[in-house]
């Protein structure tokens, strides 16, 4: 059941550089629960795409199954979308990316979709450094099937029914770092200021850009004792840095105090600007990220922001050494060897 969104919802009637209104980046009205964290993330995606003046058809959005995986209908109606099957978004995205390297691939998944049934595909998309943005809307539970604990639910976290989770949580960020993901970030659905530039940077990153976004499930996992509740997360957030994304064409206008900021240039010429909250912080050093993350966990804190980026990221097309022209553009002349070649092949089997 979906409705066209009435236009008056959107005061931003200013066109961006490619001539689109913010409304052009929206989707149909959400059917998620009122207050669901996932809707805030959809909003951030809309905002991010509008701001960087992305032509919507230059992006493809893909997802698995779950409340989170429904969100691609709620943003970017002018982009092709693919709501696939449970836990298998990464393989679909891999194929799509192989077919056409010229698009931006935005994958959306849930913690059930990724950390349980989709674990294998998640790990291997990272291993291949597939050029995509991979967002997990992480609520520590299975929203759509009514609130069972997911594998990211923290040890001891209390469910709505009052049960304490006896399992260690899978920390997707820790996992992504261990697996050498080339862009690893964590954020919070309630922190749009951080989220929007993170998504923009992820879209500029030429490789696997992972953003684990804690996104409270207001219906099933927002109770006292849940470590994925809105209030718990708000209270325990610790940020690596303040974060700015500067698209290639824009000049940097902000002045940063020397030493307190770091700049990372991305492949497409865009820049990430980090005003560091911790002086020893270097977003291109994986080992410190691992240790900082662990330290935060030990203190019951949730570390957010960009944790690690590999500026020399080589994506799957690079690894496979494919042609620049998207494979789906190749025609008979470029794909089918000549008839004479076949005769030679026949000859080799006589």
């Amino acid at each position, binding site marked *: 059941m*979906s409705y066209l969104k009435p236009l008056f919802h959107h005061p931003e009637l200013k066109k961006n550089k490619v001539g689109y209104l913010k409304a052009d980046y929206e989707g149909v009205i959400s059917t998620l629960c009122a207050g669901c964290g996932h809707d805030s993330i959809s909003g951030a995606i809309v905002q991010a795409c509008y701001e960087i003046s992305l032509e919507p058809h230059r992006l493809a959005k893909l997802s698995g199954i779950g409340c989170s995986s429904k969100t691609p209908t709620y943003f970017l109606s002018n982009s092709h979308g693919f709501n696939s099957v449970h836990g298998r978004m990464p393989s679909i995205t891999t194929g*799509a990316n192989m*077919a056409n390297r010229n698009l931006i691939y935005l994958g959306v998944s849930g913690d059930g979709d990724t950390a349980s049934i989709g674990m294998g595909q998640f790990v291997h998309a990272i291993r291949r450094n597939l050029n995509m943005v991979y967002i997990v809307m992480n609520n520590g539970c299975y929203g759509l099937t009514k609130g069972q604990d997911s594998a990211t639910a923290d040890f001891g976290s209390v469910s709505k029914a009052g049960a304490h989770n006896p399992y260690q949580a899978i920390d997707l960020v820790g996992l992504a770092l261990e697996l050498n993901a080339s862009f690893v970030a964590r954020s919070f659905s309630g922190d749009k200021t951080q989220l929007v530039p993170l998504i923009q940077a992820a879209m500029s990153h030429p490789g696997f850009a992972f953003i684990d976004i804690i996104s409270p499930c207001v219906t099933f996992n927002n109770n006292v004792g849940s470590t994925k509740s809105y209030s718990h997360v708000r209270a325990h957030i610790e940020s690596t840095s303040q974060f700015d994304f500067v698209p290639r064409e824009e000049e940097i206008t902000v002045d940063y105090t020397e030493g307190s900021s770091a700049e990372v240039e991305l492949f497409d010429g865009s820049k990430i600007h980090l005003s560091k909250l911790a002086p020893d912080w270097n977003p291109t050093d994986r080992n410190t990220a691992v240790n900082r993350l662990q330290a935060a966990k030990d203190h019951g804190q949730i570390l957010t922001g960009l944790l690690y980026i590999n500026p020399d990221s080589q994506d799957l097309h690079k690894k496979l050494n494919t042609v620049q022209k998207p494979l789906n553009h190749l025609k008979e002349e470029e794909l089918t060897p000549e008839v004479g070649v076949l005769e030679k092949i026949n000859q080799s089997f006589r």
Partner: protein
Amino acid sequence: MDQQTVVNDLVIRFANVNGTGSASANDMFAKSIFRMGIPITPKNIFPSNIQGLPTWYEIRVNGNGYLGRRAGIDVLVGVNPQSLRRDIDSVRPGGYFVYDSSKKLHNEFIREDINYIGVPMIALSMENYERARLQQLFKNIIYVGAVATLLDIDLEVVKEVIAEQFEKKPKLLPPNYKALELGANHIKENYSYPLPIRLEKTDKVADSILIDGNTACALGALYAGASVMAWYPITPSTSIAKAFETYCKKLRVDPETGKKRYAFVQAEDELAAIGMVIGATWGGARAFSATSGPGVSLMSEFIGLSYFAEIPVVLINVQRGGPSTGMPTRTQQADIISSAYASHGDTKHPLLFPSSPAECFEFTAQAFDLADRLQTLIMVISDLDLGMNNHMSPPLQWEEGRNYDRGKVFTAEELENMTEEFGRYLDVDGDAIPYRTYPGTHPTKGSFFTRGTSHDEYAKYSELGEVYQSNVDRLAKKWETTKGLMPKPEFYQEVNQSKELGLVFFGTTAYAAIEAMDQLKDGGVIIDSMRVKSFPFPSEVKEFINTHERLFVVEQNRDAQFRTLLINELDIDPSKLIPILNYDGTPITADTIQKQIQEKLGVEV
């Protein structure tokens, strides 16, 4: 044990040890016969292991061009002590057992009713070569020389084949030739030769090639423009991937930049492999995967998605012995039902049944056109016998200027000029096939949301019963359209003459079935026959069945799965269709078919 001379009609089997390099010697031996213009059917019978276990290489030589397996071994070259007992027992009475006489054969291995031919293979090899590795290898060439002489194979032809094999290592030629002569001379000096069963040059091969089905499938995909292959290793399909990569490296690399016009991705499992293919074809490339039964089972959920969301997919299923891990290195045709009806819910998938490497090539290529045209998954159903063994086959053919049929895809221009709203699942033309668009085609038109949930004609989610039903009814109608596009069956003998008896078969069963037909004819039983090439069945299939009173359906599985398809899809009275089955993992023989048919006829008369 005197015998009449038999020319160009024998079965020879080599009993070797896995991983000792005998494969290449055996191949050269087979090719030499082929070069003499005599049709051959080689089969590798290998264990599911890498090294050290018994492995057999069997060649049926048949001047009449019968290409099925034949039981009864005329000549056995036994060089594996592990399997000696079994090997000797397997020789037909009056047949020949060629063995390594470097050590004396124990008395218990002597059968009175067969002929023994000793060649001191390893002894000769050790006398003539120094390095242990070479002694091993040349031992194989020594027996090639011996057996060639016994069967009257022209040694010059063998040398020619060896020369081609070592084209890039000419230094290896003299020692190889020498080994050949060592074997030949031993025979010449110690035995009367040639044997009464022997070979003679002929011209029954014409322009045929000797190639395995998997290589042909790979070449079919290459010529059809597949640019993405995603796969996961599994016997007996792995060599499709290997061949595809090998030929792509030769033929699909941009000569200027060295960059590849293909993406070859070894997936983490079969679920990921088929997911990548679905993603790639959704993205507008031609993509495919190859697997075997266990892989198809794992792909089931995704196969349902491709059916329901109407995404073109080409999947090659090289069947092996099931169920479960089953007999991974044996052949069967036992994935018929699980392929045709793969996935939960009301689903059906078109299948293509190649019978020869030439058809592997052609059907794989056609599968891409059909998948794009019909926007659904097309499965090419091969098997281990067809895929991994060499077969004599017509040459592979590609017509000059042949274009791909990419089906109904709106271009940016067409979208630009469109006035009505684009509806991904609208049946615009009445053939139940809708139009699709590739992502990224047009800035504001033609985008849609693909989903495995029920959807309306505009690809929007809907839980309304009537919307769901009209969509799946259209899919059923598309199935009717499909029937008209699938390759038609091939008929043998006097077709559709309202004869009493009919024979129905498909895939690799064809070789044996055609031979059996001739055998039955010799015995006075005339049977029309039909080789089915595709599912859903074109109308000719039903016509043939309707115009015959009783039909034998020959297939290589226990449960007569193909017969089930015929009954179920064509509403045929099951009592008309009599199953003829072979499912022990070996390719079916003409004798088996003939015997079973005669039994059934006997019983029923």
